[in-house]
């Protein structure tokens, strides 16, 4: 697995750049990850999504899909597209330090 430096932190990532170690993630790193992909600032709504994803991943062992974030996490799909434009499923996973969702819906 490649190792890359984001901010001042060394992290393990897959070939695309998604974190592979759940515990290497922290909130400061999330801010760096977000700014790397054009999200200049993480607001409360972003954090709500991120914390749902992190805790759901711990329980389920896989990254929640958009539909799950809406149906279980209670965050409207439209809002996810505003917070993480164009490719919300992948972008929110990246910022939350998780793999891309494996499910189709």
């Amino acid at each position, binding site marked *: 697995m*490649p190792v*890359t*430096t*984001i901010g001042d932190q060394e992290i393990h*990532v897959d*070939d*695309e*750049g*998604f974190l592979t170690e759940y515990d290497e993630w922290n909130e400061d790193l999330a801010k760096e990850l977000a700014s*790397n*992909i*054009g999200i200049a600032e993480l607001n409360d709504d972003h954090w709500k999504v991120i914390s749902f994803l992190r805790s759901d991943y711990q329980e389920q062992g896989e990254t929640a899909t*958009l*539909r*799950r974030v*809406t*149906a279980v996490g209670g965050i*409207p*799909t*439209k809002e996810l*597209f505003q917070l993480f*434009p*164009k*490719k*919300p*499923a*992948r*972008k929110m996973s*990246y910022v939350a330090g998780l793999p891309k969702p494996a*499910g*189709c*819906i």
Partner: protein
Amino acid sequence: MTDAPIVPDFGDDDELRKISFVCSKGSLDMAYPGLIMASGALEQGIETHIFFTFWGMDMINKKTMGNLKFSPVGNPATHMPAALAPFPGMTTMATKQMKKQLDELDIPDIPTFLAHLQDMGCHLWACKMSVDMFGLTEDDMIDGLDGVLNVGDFMEIIDGAQTMFI
């Protein structure tokens, strides 16, 4: 180390992709493929259009959309003896079984699925000829339908799109 950090390319600067699906079937098993692929496309930021035509109208007809059926008749992939498939009650049983399987995978029913696609920005179009043929009005069809189009208009809208016929 001065190497640039490894950051995923989300293609934000890529040219906008477009895709369209023509849904022409009204059975439960043939309704899902188009919707699932459309969902995947929308998640990838691809502009997505679905054109419902012929039996596919049942997918957006309020009276039928929540009640599509799956029939094992003429479908060897169910691995059911062909002689049993047409028995009374078989369609009801097969439909129930399929719905149970879908539910176990957290796949929503058709009306919920369509609403989810609309939330993701999916465009839904109804075929003019089918609307006329089945005597439907806009009130009969899903809320938020983008419009009723003839094929020529649809061709203009999907200019440059990849298209799948289902």
